[in-house]
């Protein structure tokens, strides 16, 4: 078992669950210092690494690595799930065993990343308003059309979060979109805590915020108590040191082990002495306040934005704003505070002034670009404000209308989300050493006639348009025979 001190991100509960299932092989990648950690619990089993098959080499296409300049007539080699080589075709050695895919006339881009979505789950909102201990991993259903559509549209990773109707909704996770078993797909077990400032229907904002402050205060108290306890524990040990000198070796060993586990769990509550159910339930809030995970704060109205920022300041957590339509009114504030913000799925919509009756068109990419807010996009499978808001590439393409360059738009759905989710050390761009998550397009990205031809996740071809019978059916139904 390889455990490093940076592997501190999963919570007590998920960790307990993990320890009971030793045959699972899970890749947990996270770290404040952005260190990749591969945690292999137990020995063999249906191995995540097995997803990555033999080598693949794309030759002859145009590669847009996002990090760095595009390369024409390039070769891209993926080996054991990772990018092994990238460069002009005459400078790259193609491994003999590699499956060579002719990409002439095609464009290769990194897999797209959904930075925040509530899709792909069983049910997104818990009725209980305070459920920080829940994890979407327990609700993610890889059989839902969301995942199929993701691959069809070149999305290879998605940060899936609880819905917007629960005060403290639980923990989001980042998963690769290919797979049948969520554990094989998970790349970040706890990507952040979902907090919603929008009151559930029938409730007011005063009660919503009071409850939130109460829970955050409790978590802060817990951190303080744990700190005190640890101090007195240390003093006690110091005092006992001389008396139990003969047992020192054994104790030391055990203490180290204990500490490892507690760090691993990102929560002092897993220490035997302090553990009780309330503490465990609060573990996720504790790791939030320790800045081990960010908060994805759903802001429905513009008024929620300053509140979110003030709360983050007061309690010392890292906020990422998930914006509703109305929040464009707080764009300047968001820009000044340099807080990351994710735009709502409806990027263009109309409003009528309730007093004057004046009709006004709101173009969010324009408003947020003016305010200096880097654009990050969400999709929606139900919205009809714009025609293609269910496609991540469409959202980025729409923003090019507001002056975002094609390169910036592509980065906004690849590298930028990866950076925000702190997974940019292994996904988000095409670089040697990063995961083999590659999308082969029929032409230039973000163009009307461009389709995803192949999607590769961890070096495995998981989508091939030429075999996509569902897409064929969507385009041209099977004609009835008379």
């Amino acid at each position, binding site marked *: 078992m390889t455990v490093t001190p940076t592997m501190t991100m999963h919570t007590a509960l998920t960790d307990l669950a993990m320890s009971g299932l030793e045959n699972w092989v899970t890749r947990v990648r996270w770290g404040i210092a952005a260190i990749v950690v591969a945690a292999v619990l137990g020995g063999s089993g249906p191995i995540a690494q097995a997803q990555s098959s033999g080598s693949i080499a794309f030759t002859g296409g145009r590669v847009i690595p996002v990090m760095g300049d595009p390369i024409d007539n390039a070769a891209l080699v993926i080996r054991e799930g990772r990018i092994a080589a990238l460069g002009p075709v005459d400078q790259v050695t193609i491994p003999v065993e590699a499956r060579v895919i002719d990409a002439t006339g095609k464009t290769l881009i990194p897999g797209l990343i959904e930075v925040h979505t509530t899709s792909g789950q069983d049910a997104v909102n818990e009725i209980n308003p305070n459920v920080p201990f829940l994890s979407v991993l327990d609700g993610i259903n890889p059989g839902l059309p969301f995942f199929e559509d993701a691959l069809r549209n070149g999305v290879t990773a998605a940060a899936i979060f609880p819905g917007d109707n629960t005060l403290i909704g639980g923990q989001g996770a980042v998963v690769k979109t290919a797979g049948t078993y969520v554990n094989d797909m998970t790349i970040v077990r706890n990507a952040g805590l979902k907090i919603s400032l929008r009151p559930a229907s029938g409730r007011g904002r005063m009660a919503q915020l009071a409850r939130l402050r109460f829970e955050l205060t409790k978590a802060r108290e817990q951190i303080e108590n744990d700190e005190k306890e640890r101090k007195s524990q240390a003093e006690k040990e110091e005092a006992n040191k001389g008396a139990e000198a003969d047992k020192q070796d054994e104790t030391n060993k055990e203490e180290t082990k204990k500490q490892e586990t507690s760090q691993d769990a990102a929560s002092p509550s897993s220490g035997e002495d302090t553990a009780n159910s309330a503490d465990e339930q609060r573990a996720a809030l504790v790791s939030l306040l320790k800045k081990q995970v960010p908060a994805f704060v759903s802001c429905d109205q513009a008024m929620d934005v300053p509140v979110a920022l003030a709360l983050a300041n007061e309690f010392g957590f890292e906020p990422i704003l998930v914006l509703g339509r109305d929040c464009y009114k707080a764009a300047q504030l968001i820009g000044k505070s340099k807080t990351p913000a994710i735009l709502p799925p409806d990027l263009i919509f*109309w409003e*009528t002034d309730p007093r004057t009756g004046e*009709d006004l*068109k709101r173009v969010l990419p324009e408003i947020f670009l003016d305010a200096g807010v880097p654009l990050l996009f969400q999709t929606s*499978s*139900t919205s*009809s404000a*714009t*025609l*293609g808001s*269910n*496609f991540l590439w*469409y959202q980025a*393409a*729409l923003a*090019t*209308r507001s002056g975002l360059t*094609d390169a910036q738009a592509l980065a906004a759905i690849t590298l930028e989300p990866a950076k925000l989710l702190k997974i940019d050390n292994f996904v988000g761009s095409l670089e040697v050493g990063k995961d083999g998550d590659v999308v082969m397009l029929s032409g230039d990205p*973000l*163009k*009307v*006639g461009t389709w995803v031809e192949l999607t590769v996740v961890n070096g495995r071809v998981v989508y091939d348009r030429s075999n996509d019978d569902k897409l064929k059916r*969507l*385009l*041209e*139904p099977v*004609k*009835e025979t008379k």
Partner: protein
Amino acid sequence: MISFKDRLDPGGWAGSIRVIVAWGAVTWGMVLVPSHASVSLQPEGAEGQVILKAAQIHTLAAQGSIEPGFVKIEGGRIVAVGDADAVGLKEGTTDDAGVIDLGGAHLIPGLVDAAALFESLGPDAEVTSEVTPTWTAADSVNRRARALREAFDQGITTLAVLPGSDNVVGGWAAVFKTTGDQTPASLVEPRAGLTVTLASDPARRNRSGTRPDSIYVRLPTNRMGVVWLLRRAFQQAEEEPDNPEFQPIRQALKGNTRLMVRARTAFDLEAALRVLEEFHAQAPPILVGGQEAYNVIDQIKRAGASVALERLRTNAVYGPEATELVWNLPGILAKAGIPFALTGGDLLEQARFAHRFGLGEVEALAAITRVPAGLLGLSERLGAIAPGYDADLVVLDGPPLQWSTNVRGVILNGRLPQSLHQNIRKD
């Protein structure tokens, strides 16, 4: 419709281009002053003469695409289209002060929505009667409604408002020009076509389940009832030739007016064509909705019907019948040679998606301009950039079928929007 026509003498402006531009500069200068009064008093070139120069003009007419091209507008109408010569400019004088150079802009005809998803004022269905043939949507349209502004902003200059789908015979569809910044929509044609519904909609809200134990439960509550009511209305129209209430139905069956039939599923589309055949309808109908038209291609062709496709969707099934999602339906209809239009707003974006899904570029543009204009019987004056046509133009800052392209301005009846004023050469 042009209320200033009578007040101003167009001939007076038809002389020197320079005079016009001097006049225009004054007018447009006034527009920039935030005084509504001055705006509403000035027709903004509606009567004047203007020559537009664009990088590409998609005429949707015999001239095809012209690169670069000129359009000469006079009195709210297009008078000439083509190269510098065609609009009366001499070689080498293309930077004449009389020309508004739109730079890299593309020009397309004002878009025509043959079945707007536009709500009329208040409820759009009559709940006390299923058959209201003489009623007109025109009477209940709020001409200052946001939807009309939105449509205008998207480049839609003409749209048809249909009575709601909850009545079996809903009444007359009306055609409007859309609403600009300061101008309410204007009525083009109050009786553009008789609208009937052959779908689940009329039966949908009549179930007693929605109003338990109510005496107000009314016909129809199922699809048989919908078809029966339609048949009965047709029959009554024949049996009572003097009843003015059925006059529109008689007109439609005789082929003297368009019949617009809302139908989505294959069996509704078939039923519509069957009933019309039974009653010896003289003219083919316009099928509004048409989501499952791919399964009845032959029948539609045989009947000579055309299709006003309901707003394309990429995410979910359609309507109360949850008809299947078929992305390339426009492409299928084009291949079969069935005239069709894309309707329901967001037309340019719909055309882009239709093109992505397999429809040709020219056909995609035609499906939001020339074809719907024809479906509404206005092909003589709308849907193309050609001499004699209304000066309804959309100025785009790039090729029409690219995601990155913005609508830079919409010219309605020759009226130039403020967004284009920056292109006017001051010297």
